[in-house]
């Protein structure tokens, strides 16, 4: 083997070494930083007002279903309860929840008298909800009532 043949073999060898070294060697990717964006949803103000009135039976309850069209603030106010033999200062139960079965399944409830409200205020997602007024053992006779529900 003369000098030129040796040089040629050396060139082939080098080429093969480079080619093999290139196989399967992907360029490593630098890790990137993941940015998490948290979106804060703004509660819509009440834009609809519904009047719920009737009579609370002794030991009974009444409920009213309504639709909240967007995530926002819902308020429930007992404007008036009593009359017809029941004192206007009577305490009743008031609740907010979701219609379930033949009643309103309340998730929030309290005892209250009528007056300036709101008596219940909650931030709710869009959906169907209900307000419930009920006797907590104070009624000696059926009590007329008026409740205002405000929601988006």
């Amino acid at each position, binding site marked *: 083997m003369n000098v030129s043949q040796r040089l040629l073999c050396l060139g082939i060898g080098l080429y093969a070494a480079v*080619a093999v070294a290139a196989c399967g060697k992907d360029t490593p990717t630098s890790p990137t930083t993941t940015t998490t964006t948290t979106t804060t949803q703004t509660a819509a103000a009440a834009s609809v007002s*519904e009047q*719920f009135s009737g009579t609370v039976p002794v030991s009974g309850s009444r409920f009213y279903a309504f639709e909240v069209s967007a995530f926002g603030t819902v308020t429930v106010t007992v404007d008036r309860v009593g009359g017809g033999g029941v004192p206007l200062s009577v305490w009743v139960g008031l609740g907010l929840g979701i*219609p379930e079965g033949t009643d309103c399944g309340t998730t929030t409830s309290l005892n209250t008298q009528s007056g300036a409200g709101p008596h219940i205020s909650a931030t709710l997602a869009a959906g169907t909800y209900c307000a419930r007024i009920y006797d907590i053992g104070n009624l000696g006779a059926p009590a007329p009532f008026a409740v205002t529900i405000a929601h988006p």
Partner: protein
Amino acid sequence: MRLILALGLAVTVAGCGADTPVTPTSPSVPATSVNSTSRLFSGTLTARDAQFYSFTLPQNSGVFVTLASVTTTDDRDATGIALGLGLGVPRGTECVMSTRVVTTSALSPQIREFTNQGVRCVSVFDPGTLRATVRYAVRIGYYR
């Protein structure tokens, strides 16, 4: 010499990226389970009365409503009396129906409807046929 070069190049190029082929396998199919639920809505209905029952559909689903039984209140004999049956959404103090039928009791659903998730209601009402109070039983089925 050129032949040796060409052969070397061909072998090198052919060797690159030639991984052993893998025999394709069938994608595994997860076992699908259908969870259905059933509710019973029963009570008594007087002339010109209407009653409703609310429930929450956790997902879009078919809803099946069956007026399964209408009986007398005294001896609970089956009657052939037709009642109103409806499916809708609770609004105010009632169920606002989007579908309604007047039907006698049966074993298969009188209302079958695909409904979006959310709170829904089934109403039973007197369509003007009642002369006396009756007992009723309604079965409500849906997927969850």
